[in-house]
């Protein structure tokens, strides 16, 4: 179980591999299947998720601990977090567009998509549920987002090869993608229980 007593490397490893957000928790599967047709776009999406997720946790953690908890409004956290995340994604989009045009061209299309990505909200919630302090929340979120990146890039690489294989008509397209994903998930099951995580 993840807690504040845990070594930060173990937190990172647990979030990234053992409890991989896509393959073990089955969160954010919409983008996992939607944007994994080619390696290039999946890398763009993965990078954008890493970026947004870190920012989202960095903002939603203070909102929870300094606004919602003192006012006894913990039950409003879903609404408050969605508001926060949507605002900061917009802000980041503007900022990147102005300051780093090449990065904007690479991530541009994916940033608005991530506003509705459940993994971002999930990471923010999990940090709260595990009662992590701010530093460890950021480490945990980094792990979650790297896990997302690794999983979607591996999946896209496999799908690119599967596209050229003579798949039976019955399984063409999404069915074979689901089978691929479930096999990857089984493989990741091998990490379960490592270091008692």
């Amino acid at each position, binding site marked *: 179980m993840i807690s504040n007593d845990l070594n930060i490397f173990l937190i990172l490893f647990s979030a990234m591999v053992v409890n991989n957000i896509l393959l073990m928790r089955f969160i954010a599967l919409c983008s996992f299947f939607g944007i994994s047709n080619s390696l290039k776009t999946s890398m763009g999406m993965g990078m954008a998720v890493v970026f947004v997720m870190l920012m989202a946790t960095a903002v939603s953690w203070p*909102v929870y601990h300094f*606004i*919602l908890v003192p*006012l*006894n*409004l913990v039950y*409003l956290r879903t*609404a*408050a977090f969605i*508001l*926060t995340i949507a*605002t900061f994604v*917009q*802000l980041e989009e*503007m*900022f990147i*567009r*102005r300051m780093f045009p090449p990065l904007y061209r690479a991530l541009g299309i994916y940033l608005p998509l991530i506003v509705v990505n459940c993994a971002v909200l999930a990471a923010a919630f999990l940090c709260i549920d595990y009662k992590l302090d701010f530093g460890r929340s950021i480490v945990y979120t980094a792990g979650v987002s790297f896990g997302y990146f690794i999983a979607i890039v591996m999946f896209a690489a496999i799908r690119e090869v599967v*596209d*050229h*294989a*003579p798949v039976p*008509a019955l399984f*063409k*397209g999404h069915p074979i993608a689901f089978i691929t994903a479930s096999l990857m998930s089984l493989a990741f099951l091998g990490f379960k229980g490592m270091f008692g995580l």
Partner: protein
Amino acid sequence: MSVLIREVVTPFLALGLLGSGFAVLLSVCYRFLSVKGDPKLDLFMSILPGANCGACGFAGCLGFAESLTREGAEPTGCLAGGSAVAARLAEAMGISMEAQAELVAFVACRAGRKAAKKKYIYDGVDNCQAASLLFGGDKECDYGCIGLGSCVRVCPFDAIGINEEGLAVVDREKCRSCRKCVKACPRQLISMAPKNQTVLVACRNLDKGKRAREVCSIACIACRICEKNCPAKAITVVNNLAVIDYNLCTRCGICVEKCPQKCILLLPAGKADRQEEVASAAPVAA
């Protein structure tokens, strides 16, 4: 009263203030961070097809539109949009341009399951490149269409299909001459021809007559009958294959009648042509 404040007023105020705070933050930041786009860029983007096919040599339509904002840019770069888009771009840029002939892709093989003999039964990786590496493809003819749809997959406009004969067929109405299929075909079977060119040689076989006849019942056998009969002297047999000079051809159709192998096609002109081509072409799952 205190319950009312605690359960209703505080949440409303908290979320309301949070939301308004963010709204103010966003509008202030927008003031400092907004990027003033070139108004011409949006105009060019609205004219371009937006398929991001990359035939212009840029990363996508946006890249090409950016290049147009610079000095001395050519409005004809968009192959997919053709002359219509080029004309509108030239108008938007305030320069004049001459009209160009519209080109469409043509797959020079009509030898389906009945006509072409097979060397072996192919059951492997589903693309033409892989099949052509294995003993030069599954057809006896080393020049024919393999029909695994490598061209279909690269077409950004859904203009190529594989028909039930296992041949790639171009929808001449949908083709926007981006030339992606020309590059994708491992046999160099696809070439660009003017859209009004209705007489086309549907063969690329360079074998001598006897060998060509053995591998395919509708291959060009280099008999030179078309060359002798052409009133416009538009056909020449080069390297055992009839070649039409599109500038000299009058589309009279005499060669089509005379060809003993029926490997010269006369496509019906205009809309009817499209139906003929598409009726048998089913799209391949990419």
